[in-house]
């Protein structure tokens, strides 16, 4: 029993190392130049080049990109949750003829890879003159997030006891009130899970901003990271500083919402 515990802890420490070391490497490398990064990758810098952070934050525009990404991700996630939770409620709690077909329709959406339809999307965006348009970008994120988010939420909502809903009906609650005051609060764990998942998807996405944003003032962090690569070389020190800035946001969010996220994942695992 004791050795089993020892193995468990050893495994956990290994996992911690596997996740922390890359972040530590990125952070330490952010104070080095290319030569130091490649000739002594794991040593501390001989000279701490704080200017790399200054370059990343100001000259390369990461401060602006950070705000852009944050606004885009928060806005997209809020809309995804509102729309998908309504659809999921409809699918999971109402019995109508095309109920199952509708869910299958959303599930089928998960089978379409983004790259397969990038050209028609690009054609539409170009012809409707919707480049450099945050609203259009949000619509795309909502469309691509709907299948997964709807499936997870519908699955979760289906497991909520019908009796609670019936009690609300007896109290005179309308359908919308039930959705808002009963189903949504009870779906908190699932909503947290899909919120985090979608936030990270939008935050890390390069493809849509690359194709549909060309105004430098509207770029996102993921797109901004490409600024550090030149045609014939890459300035890794400032790039590592920019990566540190980029990952700091999900990292801080995770620290704040750690409990909720973990509960959401656990609840999803049991009820999903």
């Amino acid at each position, binding site marked *: 029993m004791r050795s089993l515990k020892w193995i468990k802890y050893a495994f956990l420490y290994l996992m911690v190392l596997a996740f922390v070391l890359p972040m530590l490497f990125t952070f330490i490398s952010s104070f080095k*130049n*290319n*030569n130091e*990064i*490649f*000739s002594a990758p794991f040593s501390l810098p001989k000279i701490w080049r704080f200017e790399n952070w200054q*370059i990343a934050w100001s*000259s*390369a*525009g990461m401060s602006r990109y950070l705000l852009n990404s944050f606004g885009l991700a928060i806005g997209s996630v*809020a*809309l995804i949750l*509102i729309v998908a939770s309504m659809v999921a409620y409809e699918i999971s709690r109402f019995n109508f003829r095309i109920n199952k077909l509708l869910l299958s329709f959303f599930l089928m959406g998960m089978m379409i890879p983004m790259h397969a339809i*990038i*050209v028609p999307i*690009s*054609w*539409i*965006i*170009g*012809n*409707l*003159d*919707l*480049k*450099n*348009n*945050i*609203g*259009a970008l*949000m*619509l795309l994120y909502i469309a691509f997030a709907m299948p997964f988010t709807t499936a997870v939420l519908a699955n979760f909502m289906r497991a909520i006891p019908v009796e609670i809903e019936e009690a609300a009906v007896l109290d005179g609650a309308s359908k*919308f*009130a039930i959705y*808002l*005051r009963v189903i949504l609060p009870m779906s908190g764990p699932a909503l947290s899970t899909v919120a985090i998942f979608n936030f990270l998807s939008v935050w890390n996405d*390069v*493809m849509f901003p*690359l*194709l549909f944003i*060309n*105004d*430098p003032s509207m770029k996102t962090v993921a797109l901004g990271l*490409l*600024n*550090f*690569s*030149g*045609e*014939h*070389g*890459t*300035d*890794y020190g*400032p790039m590592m500083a920019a990566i540190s800035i980029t990952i700091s946001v999900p990292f801080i969010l995770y620290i704040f919402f750690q409990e909720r996220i973990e509960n959401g994942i656990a609840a999803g695992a049991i009820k999903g």
Partner: protein
Amino acid sequence: MKIGKLLLGSLAALAAALLLAACSGKSSTTSSDGKITLRTMTRNSKGFATSAIYFAALKQFEKDHPNVKIVDSSIADENAYNNLLKTSRASNDLPDIFRVEGVANLSEYIKAGLITNIDPIIKADPKWGDGLSKGALSYLQVPGFKGTWGVPQESGLVGVYYNKEIFKRAGYNEFPQTFSEFEAAIKKIRSLNITPIGLGAKDSYSIGHIHNLIFYHMVGVDAAKELGERKIKWTDPKIVATIEKVKELNDMKAFAPDSAGISRESAFTDFLTGKAAMFITGPWDIPNMQDKSKTKLTADFAFAKFPYFEDEPQFKDNDMQAISAIQIRGDLTGEKKKMAIELAKALSSEAYASKMANETNQIFPRTDYTVAADKSTPLFRENVELAKTSTNVGVDVFGMDPLQSMQDVTRNALVGVLQGDSPKKAAETIQQEIDNSK
């Protein structure tokens, strides 16, 4: 119910905002203040000396032409750039000035009327046009189409930058002239426990450039054109032999054992710190090799042409040069077309070329600029002098191929050879791509 109303209200407001935002896209022709909007897309990126000159030129152009607003969406990363260009083209949303890799790829754009023939522009403005290098212009003349299909931007010999001190320790006072002498030198350098050639094939163009040099010196630049015209095949023995030479170098440990997995930057650092004796690249790396804050070995570096094959002396001066160009969108009209042409000229003027050469030691394909003696480094001068000996010049072998996927296919096949694939298999993979496209 208050929350419900609030939620409904927010949803309606958000939907309205989205719709309004979605419908109020800016026109790509004119900006809201009535200015002509020119969209540019190149491989420049912030933070690099050559790019700084490019961005400064864009700003200066806006200053000189108050009726013009420039929106630049340049991306240096090759894959990202190619994705962006492909989708822009597919969605009929090409920028006004952009860059197409390779010459044969241009034919698709020419057929669709998407790029401008610059011959009439050269004729109309000889002061600008006559200064452009004839060799670079001829590279942009696409077989089957009359005209010159781009404004050249960059040139210079791709060859071998080497560490003289390491070569001296290996017993060489001069750089080997022939390929067999080159291989003998590699063995001696390897015996010193030094990596002979720094190669980071994770950036697959590095191995692509080495193969280009072998190819041009073994079978000549014209063979690449014949491949593109489908007169010969990648599986022909003489072409397979060029890939075999890559394998030969790899087998004799000319590169570090993990070269297929490391980045080009990592391999270059090995060269700058004396851990590798050679680095095969173009003039764009000269500023780094001469920068004392990046390397202590500035005085040890020298430049040489890639060795020739004794059996093929006729291809001795068939060289690889880095020639790139910008294209002007072909379907522009009126004032916008005029401004796009003016911008292309500003990005290839004598003043622009002079800045590139004097401030970053980059070779610009013009013949009418001078470089101040105190501004030119020995490596830059050696590159310029040796470039004059080229009798036939090619860029990338795949650049002569009309199939756009050849860039990835050829480079990936070469990386496969470093990882153990046979040259025959690599050649078959490349040829299969061509056969499948028929």
